[in-house]
């Protein structure tokens, strides 16, 4: 249809001469959306590549075997058989401890890692002083994270006490494989030789520790193939097996999920940009009617005409997309600085051609297809317009049944759905997203229609002239009420939805952390130490908020069926989740529910259950774990507590606020049931002055070296910092959407600008004052702004509710005042842009404008 000869192409180029900049401005509406897509795709590709390159080093081997309890003899002999086959094994035992430097009297909660001499198989430990890693095993040495020295006011060469063991700090870790990430904030790492672990005497009964063995396979052995026949045997021994590829895939999946979410924001930005392109090109098309009519007189076919302008739009769209891609690459190179501390690996930033090309293609296509819609109207411009010019609106009117228009509309919808399908995690999500976008657009179009109808219906001749004129502009021929409402409303919708989601998701953390009643938690307190720790805390004058017993156990059977007989399902499927069936439970017993839990189903233990031991004891389960185990009220669970079977029945379900920093448990027993079980304790104390926390920790650790304690205030600060960063990131995205909305708004308003300027000048010639014209524009644009802002606001409350409720699964509370604030800013922006058009009315002399008309 569009036979573009070389000369027509050059005509297209020359004809665009003065309009090029304006057209580029319209097409640049898509730039920011492209930038978002390119930046996020490139950066996540960089992360995934880095994960791939570093995953062996992060794990330290090709395979790892983990258990939270000491390996059973059967496990050890299985591992021995591997080692006889020539597979190298290294052991890492990780456990928490209070680190004490006697010289400075500093104490700090830390993560101790006892490693064998051959660890790690992959990656290098870079130390300061250099090359001291191998010296670790020459004696009772320790190599620590630099942050430990800072908090303990210590230095290399100092003596370090861990439990009952004494070590010499010989170096700090400058760079270990993988990035430390958030974990370091909770406890700095301390590496000690594996053979000195016993000296600390910290690995006593029930203490939290992770025993892990990493394996190095012969070259060119696929870890997954290798472990396949052995996996079941390890699992039966309660040992978790992980391969490098699994870890790689899990990290990549997590990164992809995150980038998909951000990508969706980029996609919506692109869509909003598309709307901007459409309304901008509509204004552009109106300017071109005269030229097209002349071209038609001179023998141009409708195909040639369309070809000329589609070429121009496509070229400018590509330039706009390229600018966006450039910006995206710039953002990609900035991201590692912003994300430092959040990433699982050191990310090497490189250009990702595929991401750039995808951004260019998607952006260029969206720009073109949205531009095509208004451009189609140019086909029908009659050459007769050279002799007798109708209004722009009449010339450009297309019938609903116009088949190219129907085709373009269909292509537009299917492009949006196709791109959503490409980006979203699941087809279902893509359809939801397209559906939500469709609903938003439909709602905005309907409200614009209602506004036009209402303006026509209720306009009264008694109103002041300027108001009547402004209101009438909303429904007169050639109005842009729909386009402006759509751009405004969609922008408002996007920005406030992001805001509401951020507020609702982050509010949870903030309120929960603030409500905790204690701030220092002591754990790994042995049965015979509980009274001692309790009395130290009280003697120092602090409140003991909670002293909870902890009993470790595993599930032996559910409703008479043993775990071995059950067929567990992977996470997310209906049935009993394998992780929940196999995990080690740390349960407690209490007489009353704790302050951070409420019974939601059934009844808390009655006086009978509290008083005496019965054959089948009562337990209360947390809702979430009950769902994972697929159990309900009245089901029977038999527990294996240190080899003793304890039958129980679920008599209540609880909802637990996990984010409150208080000792919380999946399973709570009626006290008589566990009275005789071996246990240890967790103690939560409330120390008002932050400076006293360290002193109390030191006092306890001096008396009971195996008792670890955490200062929740510092953890809370860390969480606050992370939440702060996350909300900064979301605010950045909201601001970004705002930045997207501005060019779109300009494009939408410029569609009416020409008509308004022409009218304004005519009114001026007829004697209208500057103030009168400004008020006419004010009436029109304030109505448009209020309508767009208000509809967007209502839509965002619906959208925010859906996202918070169904994706983040937390309760939703609308924040009307800030959202109304966002709507007000949108209204202000609309007025500003409208009045800028008014300024042009006064810049042009009546003669020039009328001659132009």
């Amino acid at each position, binding site marked *: 249809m569009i036979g573009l000869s070389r000369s027509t192409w050059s005509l297209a180029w020359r004809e665009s*001469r003065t309009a090029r900049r304006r057209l580029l401005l319209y097409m640049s509406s898509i730039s920011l959306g492209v930038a978002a897509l390119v930046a996020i795709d490139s950066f996540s590709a960089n992360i995934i590549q880095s994960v791939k390159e570093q995953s062996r080093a992060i794990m330290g081997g090709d395979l790892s075997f983990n258990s939270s309890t000491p390996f059973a003899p059967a496990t050890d002999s299985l591992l021995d058989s591997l080692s006889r086959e020539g597979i190298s094994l290294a052991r890492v035992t990780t456990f928490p401890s209070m680190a004490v430097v006697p010289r400075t009297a500093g104490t700090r909660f830390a993560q101790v890692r006892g490693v064998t001499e051959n660890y790690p198989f992959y990656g290098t430990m870079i130390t300061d002083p250099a090359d001291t890693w191998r010296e670790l095993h020459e004696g009772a040495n320790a190599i620590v994270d630099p942050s430990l020295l800072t908090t303990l006011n210590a230095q290399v060469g100092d003596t370090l006490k861990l439990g009952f063991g004494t070590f010499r700090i010989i170096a700090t870790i400058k760079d270990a494989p993988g990035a430390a990430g958030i974990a370091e904030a909770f406890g700095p790492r301390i590496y000690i030789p594996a053979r000195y672990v016993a000296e600390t005497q910290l690995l006593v009964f029930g203490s939290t520790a992770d025993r892990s063995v990493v394996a190095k396979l012969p070259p060119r052995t696929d870890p997954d193939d290798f472990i396949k026949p052995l996996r079941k045997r390890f699992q039966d021994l309660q040992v978790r097996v992980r391969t490098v590829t699994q870890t790689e895939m899990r990290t990549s999946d997590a990164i992809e999920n995150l980038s998909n979410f951000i990508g969706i924001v980029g996609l919506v930005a692109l869509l909003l940009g598309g709307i901007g392109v459409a309304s901008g090109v509509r204004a552009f098309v109106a300017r071109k009617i005269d030229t097209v009519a002349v071209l038609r007189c001179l023998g141009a076919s409708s195909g040639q005409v369309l070809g000329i302008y589609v070429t121009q739009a496509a070229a400018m769209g590509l330039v706009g997309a390229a600018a966006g891609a450039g910006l995206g690459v710039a953002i990609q190179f900035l991201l590692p600085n912003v994300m430092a501390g959040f990433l699982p690996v050191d990310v090497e930033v490189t250009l990702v051609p595929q991401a750039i090309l995808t951004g260019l293609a998607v952006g260029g296509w969206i720009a073109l297809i949205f531009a095509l819609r208004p451009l189609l109207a140019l086909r029908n411009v009659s050459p007769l317009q050279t002799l007798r010019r109708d209004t722009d609106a009449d010339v450009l009117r297309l019938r609903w049944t116009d088949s190219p228009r129907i085709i373009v509309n269909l292509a537009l919808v299917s492009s949006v759905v196709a791109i959503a399908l490409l980006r979203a995690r699941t087809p279902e999500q893509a359809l939801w997203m397209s559906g939500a976008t469709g609903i938003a657009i439909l709602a905005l179009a309907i409200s614009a229609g209602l506004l036009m109808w209402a303006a026509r219906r209720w306009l009264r001749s008694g109103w002041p002239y300027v108001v009547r004129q402004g209101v009438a502009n909303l429904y007169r021929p050639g109005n842009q009420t729909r386009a402006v409402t759509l751009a405004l409303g969609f922008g408002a919708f996007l920005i406030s939805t992001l805001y509401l989601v951020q507020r609702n998701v982050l509010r949870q953390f903030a309120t929960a952390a603030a409500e905790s009643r204690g701030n220092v938690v002591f754990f790994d307190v042995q049965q015979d130490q509980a009274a001692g720790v309790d009395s130290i805390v009280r003697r120092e004058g602090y409140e003991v908020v909670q002293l909870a017993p902890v009993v470790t156990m595993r599930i032996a059977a559910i409703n008479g069926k043993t775990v071995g007989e059950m067929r567990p399902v992977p996470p997310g499927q209906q049935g009993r989740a394998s992780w929940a069936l196999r995990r080690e439970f740390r349960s407690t017993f209490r007489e009353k529910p704790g302050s951070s839990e409420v019974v939601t189903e059934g009844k808390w233990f009655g006086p009978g259950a509290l008083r005496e031991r019965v054959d089948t004891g009562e337990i209360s389960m947390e809702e979430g774990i009950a769902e994972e185990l697929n159990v309900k009220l009245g089901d029977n669970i038999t527990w294996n507590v240190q080899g003793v079977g304890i039958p129980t029945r679920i008599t209540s379900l609880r909802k637990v606020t996990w984010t409150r920093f208080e000792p919380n448990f999946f399973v709570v027993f009626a006290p008589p049931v566990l009275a005789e079980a071996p246990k240890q304790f967790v103690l939560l104390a409330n120390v008002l002055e932050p400076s006293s926390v360290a002193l109390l920790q030191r006092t306890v650790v001096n008396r009971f070296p195996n008792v670890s304690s955490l200062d929740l205030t510092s953890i809370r600060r860390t969480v606050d910092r992370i939440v702060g960063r996350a909300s900064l990131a979301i605010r950045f995205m909201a601001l970004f959407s705002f930045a997207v909305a501005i060019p779109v708004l300009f494009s939408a308003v410029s569609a009416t600008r020409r008509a308004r300027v022409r009218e304004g000048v005519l009114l001026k010639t007829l004697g209208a004052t500057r103030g009168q014209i400004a008020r006419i524009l004010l009436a029109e644009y304030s109505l448009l702004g209020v309508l767009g802002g208000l509809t967007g606001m209502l839509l965002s409350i619906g959208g925010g509710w859906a996202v918070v409720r169904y994706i983040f699964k937390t309760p939703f509370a609308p924040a009307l005042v800030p959202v109304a604030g966002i709507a007000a800013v949108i209204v202000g922006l609309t007025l500003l842009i409208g009045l800028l058009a008014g300024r042009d009315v006064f810049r042009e002399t009546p003669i020039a404008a009328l001659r132009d008309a």
Partner: protein
Amino acid sequence: MLIAREVTKEYQSGDQTIAVLRDVSFTIPQGAFVAIVGPSGSGKTTLLGLLAGLDTPTRGTVLLDESDLGKLTENERARLRGEKVGFVFQTFQLIPTLTALENVQVPLELRGTPGATERARDLIDRVGLKARGHHFPSQLSGGEQQRVAIARAFANAPKILFADEPTGNLDHATGERIFELLQSLNSDGGSTIVLVTHDATLASRASRTIRLLDGEVVEDTDLVAGSAA
């Protein structure tokens, strides 16, 4: 040869049908210089639009070199215009974003004629604007713009040129020169010229005058001459 046979054009205005032209018939032989005159609202411009194939009649036929314009599609009419028809308008209708020379090139480029630039330069030269080829329409006076428009109209050596009030926006002296230019192009090149005007003096200098009133032909000097002969 241009033939109009019982051409009627009606417009729908609300539920009323308004006939702008009623049963207009005439034949214009190749090489003629015809003026269509009449007061404002008599249907001159509508007739011009129909004769040039910019629009189609409600009833009747317009034959341009034996092609029935009413039976052609919009794009076929466009091709025919590109090959055989030239236009000059009262408001010049130059494309504002193109230079004078480029405006003249447009019809050549639309047809893909080779050597478009040379031909355009030659035409610009012939209308006496050799030095002004690289100026934009806004930098040219009204008379100069109309000369560019005439050069553009002759770019494809059309068999017939339609001029709608070509001197209407110009002062008397400039208008005079434009008219002379049209006359010389008519006598030198043999192009048919159909001029629409309400200027009686200008019309009187054409070889034939067709007068319209309320959509009907009320006078045709050719018929008078013919009956006199």
